[in-house]
Structures are given as C-alpha cells and as structure tokens.
C-alpha cells in the first residue's frame, strides 16, 4: 500500500542525511510504527509520505502510484493527517473542524453533516452535544479524538499519525490507544504511526520500524523485534524488560497444554496474556494455572515451564 524506496532527505547545514536511503513497505490495512531516538528521521519519513517535506531522492508509492510527481494538495486530501499538537482550528466548531477535508473536496453540505455525526459517534462523542462546541471547550483527550475524527473525515485509505497521543496524560492515553485499536480493527486503514514510546509501538503496531540516524535498523512484528533484536541498539532500545513486553503480546490460550498436566485451583482466562499468567503464578505461588475459555470450560493448563518455552521461542505460536 505504501512503498518507500531509497528515500533520502538531507537538510541544509546538517552533517548527515535526516533520512538515508530508506526502503520500507507497509501492507494494506496494517499499522506501521516508526520509532527511534530523536533525530532518527521518523517524523521526516512520515512527512515525506504526504509531501509536507519533499524528498531529495527515492520514490514514494501510495496505493500503487508514485506520489512524488502528483499534485501535493490533492495527495494530502486523500491521506489522513494527525499531529501531536492536533492543530484544531480554534475559530471553527468541532463540526466544522471535522468537515474540513469534505469541504475542500466539495461534498454537499448534507453529506458532510451526516459524516460529521457519524465520525463523532465513532470516536465516542455525542454529536448533538459536541458538534457546535469550540476546541477550547474540550479536554486534551477530547481534542485528540476530534483530531482523529477530522483525519478520517473523507475516509482516506492511508493515515499518517505523528505522536498522536503524545501530549496526553497516561490514563487518557491508554484509553485513546484502545479506542484507536478498536476503530482500526473496523476500518483497516493503512497507518504510518510515529512515536518515541516503545510500549506504544508494541501496542499499536502490526509492524515496527526501528530507525537510527536516518537508517532502518530493523523492521518486523513487535513479537519478532522483542524476541530477536537485530542488534545491540535495538535490544537496548526496546528495554531490559523486553521479555515481559513479549509476554504481554502472547495469549494464554495459545500456550495452554491441552491434555491437562497439573490441574490447579487457580484459573485464568484463555484471552489473558502470558504476562498476566506469570503474575498470577508468582502471586499464587502455583505450579500451573487452569485455563478456561469465555464460556468457563476448561481447555487445559499453563505451567511456568510453558511460559519459559514461549520465551525461548521453541514454540512458534500466534501473536495476540
């Protein structure tokens, strides 16, 4: 869906290119998280996709078309854009903000109004309550929701999100991440998501691209990045607790031993993560947990041994 090939950008007065011959493919409907320390070129890369920054070399393909030679105005209208500071228009109502791209595209007012209400509902805001309010009357979390709704307005197949939940308190942030995952599950947009927070990357990304000094260091699923960091830099970047992070990506159901083993007094849901299971095993000081499905049926057991096997990667199981 999005293909970057040999993408390079050099800013005047900088010793090295901000983005250096970057090649990357994002499959349709996937969320690709660009992550790395500041100055790694993640934001620059994202901004080249909608030509907010013009590349010096290389090509950018979006939906099968090389966008380096199309009209940038028209291109941007077909790509959702969310930035950390949101940039809601303070003089426009929430409804008018969301209607921005439909209006630019010349939709008729009735269709635009319907779309605005639909999107407000999508981001869990009552249209009648919020449509005519102004950005300054909203909390940070609500503004960010409106920012996402505004980017989705004309139903673009591609979304660019630059640290969209960065400037928000951790609790609201976690909720917005959950909400976005729920929305994304339904809409299946192709998303390029920039963050500097590895936990956010693991949570949001189908694939994570780790960048350093404008170069791609590793590009893979969160599971593989945590299990097999390509080099010391990645290992350090994902943190010493990468094992725990990995466990939180794996579900109990996929690792339960079907034919019993030890049946224990303690049960855990099959949809829980291995990290939850490990916590339970430690708290309860148990050898194993009994795994139950949604209906409460016993489907097997999970021992510390199984968790160890999961970590060592001797078993390749589904990712949560």
């Amino acid at each position, binding site marked *: 869906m999005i293909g970057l090939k040999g993408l390079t950008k050099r800013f005047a007065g900088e010793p090295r290119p901000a983005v250096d011959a970057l090649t990357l493919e994002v499959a349709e409907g996937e969320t690709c998280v660009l992550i790395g320390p500041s100055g790694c070129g993640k934001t620059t890369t994202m901004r080249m996709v909608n030509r907010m920054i013009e590349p010096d070399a290389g090509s950018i393909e979006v939906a099968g078309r090389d966008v380096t030679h199309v009209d940038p105005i028209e291109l*941007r209208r077909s790509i959702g854009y969310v930035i950390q500071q949101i940039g809601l228009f303070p003089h426009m109502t929430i409804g008018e903000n969301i209607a921005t791209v439909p209006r630019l595209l010349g939709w008729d007012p009735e269709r635009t109004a319907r779309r605005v209400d639909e999107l407000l509902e999508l981001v869990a805001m009552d249209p009648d309550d919020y449509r005519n309010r102004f950005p300054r009357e909203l909390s940070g979390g609500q503004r960010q929701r409106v920012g996402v709704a*505004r980017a989705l307005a004309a139903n673009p197949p591609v979304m660019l999100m630059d640290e969209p939940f960065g400037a928000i308190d951790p609790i609201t942030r976690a909720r917005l991440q959950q909400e976005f995952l729920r929305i994304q599950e339904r809409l299946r947009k192709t998303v390029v998501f920039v963050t500097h927070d590895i936990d956010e990357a693991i949570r949001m990304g189908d694939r994570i691209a780790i960048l350093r000094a404008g170069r791609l260091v590793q590009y893979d699923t969160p599971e593989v990045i945590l299990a097999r960091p390509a080099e010391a830099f990645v290992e350090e970047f994902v943190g010493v607790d990468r094992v725990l992070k990995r466990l939180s990506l794996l579900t109990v159901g996929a690792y339960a031993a079907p034919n019993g083993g030890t049946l224990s007094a303690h049960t855990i849901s099959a949809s829980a993560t291995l990290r939850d299971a490990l916590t339970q095993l430690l708290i309860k000081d148990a050898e194993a947990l009994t795994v139950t499905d949604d209906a409460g049926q016993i489907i097997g057991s999970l021992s510390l041994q199984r968790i160890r096997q999961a970590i060592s990667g001797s078993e390749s199981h589904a990712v949560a």
Partner: protein
Amino acid sequence: MLAEAWLYLLGHPAQFAKALGVHVSLSLSALALAALIAVPAGVRLAHRRAGALAAINAANVGRTLPSLAVLALAMPLLGTGFLPSLVALTLIALPPVLINTIVGVREIDPDVIDAARGMGMSGREVLRRIELPLAVPVIFAGLRTAAVQVVSGAVLATFIGGGGLGDFITAGIAMMALPLMLVGAIPVTLLSIGADALFGALQRQLTPRGLQ
C-alpha cells in the same frame, strides 16, 4: 466660553460642516488606503521571516516620526491641499496596521497551519480560512490605533492647506480666541473617542466566537 464656542458654531454652520466633512473624509480615506496597502503587504511579509522582521523594524521607526514632521515632509514633495494631506495621513496610519497584520498572522499556532496544510489546503485556502480569520482581532486592534492617530493627526492638515477641524484651532490660536479653538478641539476629541469605540466594537464583533 463653551457657550461662546457653541454660538460661533451656530453662527457658521456651513463652515463647520465643511471642516467636519473634510476632517472625516480625510481620516476615513487615509485609514482605508492604509488598510488596503498594509493588510495585503503585511500578510505577504508575515510569511517571510526576514521580511517580517525588517518590516516591523521599519514600521516602528516610521511610528516614532511625529505626525507634524510627516506632514511637513509631504509639503515640499506634493505641495498643499487635500491630496498631500491624505498621503501624509496614510503614511501615519500604515505602521500600526502593518505591524499588527504581520504579528497577527505570525502569532498563529504553527501546528494549526501545519494541520491545515497537511489536510490539503492550498496557500490561498490557508490564508482565507485560517490565517485571516485568526488574525482579524489583531488587525482590527491595529486599525483602531491607526484610526485614533489619523483623526488627531488630521488636525495638522491645516498647516499644509488640507482643511479639516484644525482650521478652527489654528485660527483660534492666531487670534488668541479660545472659543474658536474649542470649536475645532472638542469635535476632534469626540471624533477620536468615537473612532476608538467604533473600532473596538468592530474588533469584538469580528473576533471569531471560538476565540472569545
């Protein structure tokens, strides 16, 4: 003394009406011209960092020139009468409008502009839908300052034969006739208070609701 001034006014209605008319039309024209020049120029300059700084510095220097000096400078170049007065007053009105336009556009949150561009607004659309509406309160504050300066500065037009209410004041000074001075001074005071109130009201009226 006020009564004497009032009697003089009643005795010379045509003369007063003419002076008032000239004063108002001189002020309004100067203000309109200044707005027509300074707002587009300011918007353009605001988009260039170096240009904006240079323009603000130049305008600040221009602001410190006494109104009388500007009028005096206009005379040798343009002669006397309405037109040179108009040019001089326009020059007086330009700096506050120019400075406020530049500042009004430049102080808009860059993220708002980035979001607008990123969603596919052209430069002109950004200007029309985002920058101008957001800069309007600041631009009108500049026009308000300029209006007061021009209304009071127009008193000096009399020195270069531009007419206006200043005629009464200079005549009054020349004849040592205080009531005659007041025939010019009181209406000018009221005019500038009125201009201030009018532009203040316009400024509030035109400030987008979301910014209030």
